[in-house]
């Protein structure tokens, strides 16, 4: 079965790097289910700045080779079972970060510069385990002042779900500016939306400030309730019961397989 969402998911290559947003910022769950159906493999996930059920499902489906993140959890539903199992088994490469380091890497990419300096990190095991992060002495200081450089993060693809887009491909992201950061930094950005509106978003000054211009958007598809079971600001709340149901199922390999299988059956029906 092919849908617009599948058309989007098919544009993500196996072996590529995909940036995904935090739980409350418009998680493209419909596209995640499509990725699992297609079986796109060897993905590197960049969680901006943390991951949840989306990352856990892709890891559980064996489609992820590496994760850069500040955390992966199911929030109130507890730890991320497939992520935790993969860590225990050593089956995914881990790039543990702290939230502002991921923002710094995206910010560097946004500005087209090779790195961004940031405070903190010195003396942590995060830094010790990140050979790609460098400590330099602040060249603008007269006294010794070590500071960490975070290299630019250039995801191949950014994916997220938003309330609406217009016919020109402008997408309304409201105050969820991390979605813009992801899109600025990524080579392509694929967006699912609840609806496409006829009125041009940039013609309304109130909406324009929260609009990501189509310049940064590669392709759009409609996916109603496309963030479910996560919520979407101003549209619908998170379905905590469903996330708890997943958390319970994903504790075992079989439970996870059943959950994914049932989802697939539902999509095919």
């Amino acid at each position, binding site marked *: 079965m092919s849908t617009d969402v599948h058309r989007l998911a098919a544009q993500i290559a196996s072996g590529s790097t995909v940036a995904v947003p*935090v739980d*409350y*910022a418009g998680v493209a769950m419909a596209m995640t289910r499509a990725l699992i159906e297609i079986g796109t493999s060897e993905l590197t996930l960049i969680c*901006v*700045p*943390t991951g949840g059920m989306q990352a856990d499902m892709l890891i559980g489906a064996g489609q992820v080779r590496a994760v850069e*993140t*500040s*955390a*992966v*959890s199911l*929030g*109130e539903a507890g*730890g*991320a079972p497939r*992520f*935790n199992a993969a*860590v*225990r*088994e*050593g089956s995914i490469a*881990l790039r*543990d*970060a*702290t*939230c*502002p*380091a991921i*923002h710094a890497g995206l*910010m560097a990419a946004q500005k087209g510069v090779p790195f961004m300096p*940031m*405070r*903190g*990190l*010195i*003396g*942590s*095991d*995060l*830094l010790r*385990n990140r050979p790609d992060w460098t400590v330099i002495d602040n060249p603008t200081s007269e*006294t*010794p*002042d*070590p*500071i960490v450089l975070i290299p630019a993060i250039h995801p191949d693809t950014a994916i997220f779900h938003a309330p609406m887009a217009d016919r020109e491909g402008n997408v309304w992201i409201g*105050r*969820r*500016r*991390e*979605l*813009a*950061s992801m899109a600025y930094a990524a080579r392509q950005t694929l967006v699912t939306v609840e609806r496409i509106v006829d009125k041009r978003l940039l013609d309304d000054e109130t909406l324009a400030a929260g609009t990501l211009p189509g310049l940064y958007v590669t392709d759009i598809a409609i996916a109603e309730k496309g963030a479910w079971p996560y919520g979407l*600001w101003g549209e619908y709340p998170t379905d905590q019961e469903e996330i708890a149901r997943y958390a319970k199922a994903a504790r075992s390999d079989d439970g996870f397989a059943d959950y994914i299988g049932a989802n697939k059956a539902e999509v095919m029906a």
Partner: protein
Amino acid sequence: MSHDMSPATPREILICTVAGLLDGCRCVAVGAASPVPAAGAMLARALRDTAGEPPLRISVLGSEAHNFFTNGSAELFDAAGQGRIDAFFLGGGQIDRHGNINLVGVGDYPRSAPRWPGSFGSGYLYYVVPRVILYREEHSPRVFVEKVDFISTPGTSEPDVYRPGGPYALLTGKALFDFDKDKRGFRLASLHPDHTLEEVTAATGFAFDHDPDPATTPGPDAATLHLLRTRVMDELSETYPAFAAELRARIQTTDRKATA
């Protein structure tokens, strides 16, 4: 209003203690999944409003009603870097004698077992927020260890490292501690009601300074408790409905015991 007269529950004493630790702050941020710190911040704000004092700004991550940021999830860190965030809360799967925090997991990294979610913003906020309050309700030797297995973020830094922030207090289900930056260690400030020094010593996997006869963590006065059970409980229900409901149930249980 009979339930307003029932004594403060242990959780309510924790919330009131958090509010006290925020004395003098202008702006406080609370991370995800932190209902007691969020309640403490909301109580501090309500107390200021009631007393007609300058308002306390609070930002609760994951809340729509109690979060004023408009620049995405990077804004909290930017504001902290600018020195605009006076206090923040951190937990820890492990916390050691030097205030080092482990949010990553037990055993040899990277194959930690158990693995915890991860370091979140700790690798930055612990350095730049002046008043970081460590909050961990479980007070046991597996949490409070001599040395953490992974340093998500260190308690102190070398003198040449930019470090305006760091640990300010450690609040657990049994006690409240201060942190002495020069000695790089915790000092017992007070024991919560019904807990003893012997019990806390046995439950803590590292040595800490203390008075021979430590003080008891004070409970709230009637006005504070009333504010907590009315306005703050309503505010809390928006972000943490399950937690607020449980707190309400506990208050009623305590009330029944008190009147029995």
